């Protein structure tokens, strides 16, 4: 495995500007040559296939419509190691789960461009009669075969491939007929890689975004999406939104017009609603400022991304609440988990059950909104005061260029991600849950949060330390990692 961007990537000067046409064309040729199935990619044929899809199978269109109608769509995750298993899974999620958006999660070898290993995983899975891979090896199957997945369902499909190396998977996925693709340079490089440089990660997604613009130029709207959940581990809204803004600026720079933003749930009804509203507004604020006036940026809420409880009943409550939170917050879609989350990849049945429970929760939430709640306003305002100083600093240090600023800001720790596996990320910023159940910043590392903002966070966290009778310190962060996975007996022992 080589995490680095290919040599030719270095050929175009690194910035937030669009990749020049000729550089892109050369890169694309080299990219498609990396694995035999790359040769199956025929853009004109792919355009035709996309044109033949009804609009309800196009994720960009479906997201726009949901937003206009105030709906909250449901989407699970899911990928198995063989075509047969994946076909069955997607059919089940579509029909039994009533998923509005059907996913294909790729396996970790594919994500890491270890396609030979993925190939072996297919064989092992077939031999074992169960999936030995944690996702669908799309590149190994190639676009033609993979297209059978698209044909098997009557919904839009999205590629979920948590990696900083999306270039070949992106080509294959779009050519196969997927109309959505999750992943972004900043978010995934900081949360899914260890040695890859931030610059290389950004470049890789610039390629994917540029490819999306090529489809766009042919009249095909594709939905790109940013995974603001990062390491999924107590990410406070402000940090997620900073990455949403930066990745959105980079995507828009390449010509992307449909760019979804994902936020992991904090599990606090008011903080989540405030975060989702703030995210959409702040992303638009910076896009407009950069001259991108026509990028559609719906927000997706994600079921709890941290450690799940092991008890089925507790997990069921978390699933359902995830629907409530997304709906009340006005998210355009919600990405679901299941009661199996703490144990392993869910069975198709468990996955469909999670989808249905979430859907019912959305129904039950009716159209209730909290926008007029004073606490909501206050929290939203706070998020703005947290986000702007960081993003402004990134742009400043990059002399106005979001790409260059990001690389420099990560180096300097001005941009930091909690619990990151990437060695180039300081990972000194440390979040924890406060006494009210909101995620706050315990230690800011070198992130330039304003003093008054940090004072608010500290005060709330000190209240929690006092209530729980623990020291104000790192243990707050560690216990916050475990919290939601604790047993009910621990969380809420019987009264008396």
């Amino acid at each position, binding site marked *: *495995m080589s995490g680095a961007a290919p040599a030719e990537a270095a050929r175009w000067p690194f910035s937030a500007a669009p990749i020049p046409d000729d550089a892109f064309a050369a890169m694309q040729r080299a990219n498609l040559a990396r694995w035999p199935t790359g040769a199956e990619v025929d853009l004109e044929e792919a355009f035709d296939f996309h044109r033949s899809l009804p609009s309800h199978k196009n994720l960009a269109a479906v997201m726009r419509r949901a937003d206009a109608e105030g709906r909250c769509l449901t989407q699970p995750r899911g990928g198995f190691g063989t075509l047969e298993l994946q076909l069955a899974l997607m059919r089940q999620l579509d029909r039994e789960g009533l998923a509005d958006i059907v996913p294909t999660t790729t*396996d*970790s*070898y594919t*994500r*890491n461009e*270890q396609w030979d*290993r993925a190939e072996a*995983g297919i064989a*092992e899975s077939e031999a074992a009669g*169960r*999936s*030995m*891979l*944690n996702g669908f090896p799309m590149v190994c199957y190639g676009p033609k075969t993979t297209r059978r997945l698209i044909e098997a369902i009557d919904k839009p499909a999205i590629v979920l491939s948590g990696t900083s190396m999306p270039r070949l998977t992106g080509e294959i996925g779009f050519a196969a007929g997927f109309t959505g693709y999750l992943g972004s340079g900043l978010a995934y490089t900081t*949360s*899914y*890689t*260890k*040695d890859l440089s931030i610059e290389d990660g950004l470049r890789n997604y610039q390629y994917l975004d540029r490819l999306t613009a090529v489809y766009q130029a042919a009249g095909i709207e594709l939905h790109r999406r940013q995974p603001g959940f990062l*390491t999924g*581990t107590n990410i406070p809204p402000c940090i997620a939104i900073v990455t949403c803004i930066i990745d959105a600026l980079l995507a828009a720079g390449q010509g992307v017009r449909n760019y979804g933003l994902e936020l992991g749930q904090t599990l606090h009804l008011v903080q989540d609603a405030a975060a989702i509203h703030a995210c959409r507004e702040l992303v638009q604020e910076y896009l407009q400022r950069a001259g991108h006036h026509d990028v559609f940026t719906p927000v997706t809420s994600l079921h709890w991304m941290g*450690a799940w409880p*092991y008890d089925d009943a507790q997990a069921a409550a978390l699933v359902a609440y995830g629907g409530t939170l997304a709906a009340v917050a006005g998210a355009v879609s919600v990405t679901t988990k299941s009661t*199996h989350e*703490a*144990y*392993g*990849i*869910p*069975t198709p049945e*468990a996955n469909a059950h999670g989808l249905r429970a979430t859907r019912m929760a959305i129904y039950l939430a009716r159209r209730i909104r909290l926008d007029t709640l004073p606490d909501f306003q206050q929290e939203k305002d706070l998020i703005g005061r947290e986000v702007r100083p960081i993003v402004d600093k990134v742009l400043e240090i990059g002399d106005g260029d979001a790409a260059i600023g990001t690389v420099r800001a990560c180096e300097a720790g001005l941009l930091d991600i909690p*619990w*990151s*596996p990437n*060695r180039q990320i300081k990972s000194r910023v440390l979040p924890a849950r406060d006494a009210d159940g909101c995620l706050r910043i315990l230690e800011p590392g070198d992130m330039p949060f304003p003093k008054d903002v940090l004072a608010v966070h500290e005060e709330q966290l000190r209240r929690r330390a006092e209530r729980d009778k623990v020291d104000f310190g790192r243990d707050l962060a*560690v216990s916050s*990692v475990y919290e939601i*996975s604790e047993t009910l007996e621990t969380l809420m022992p019987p009264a008396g």
Partner: protein
Amino acid sequence: MTGVIGADTHIVGNRILSMALEEAGFEVIALGAITPAEDFVKAAIETDADAVMVSSLYGQGELDCRGFRDLFIEAGLDDILIYVGGNLVVGKQDWPDVERRFLAMGFDRAFPPNTRTDDVVEKLNADFAARAEGQRIAE
């Protein structure tokens, strides 16, 4: 020595485990996420490690961990204590069965999801004590 094997980036549990081991007085070499099996062996030789704490969360642990013990044997580290923990297999499977599979692969102990660090520290201390008395692991 701690690390997450294979292409797995789930670092949180392994990092918390490293923190807990350090607090318990062990000297910890943390290899971090996405660590190939060979790197564990290399680092074990370099640092003369007594025990290896392998995490695998992402579901491909069964593929990644095959032959892990053999690599150490080949390197002459027959005696090193090796634990494995996390979400070792794909999906929700019966734990005793999973444990059996990993012990058969040569791990000294395998830990299910929902393991807390106290438990690991306790087992590690017990095993080191048992070794002082010539046993492989404590019963």
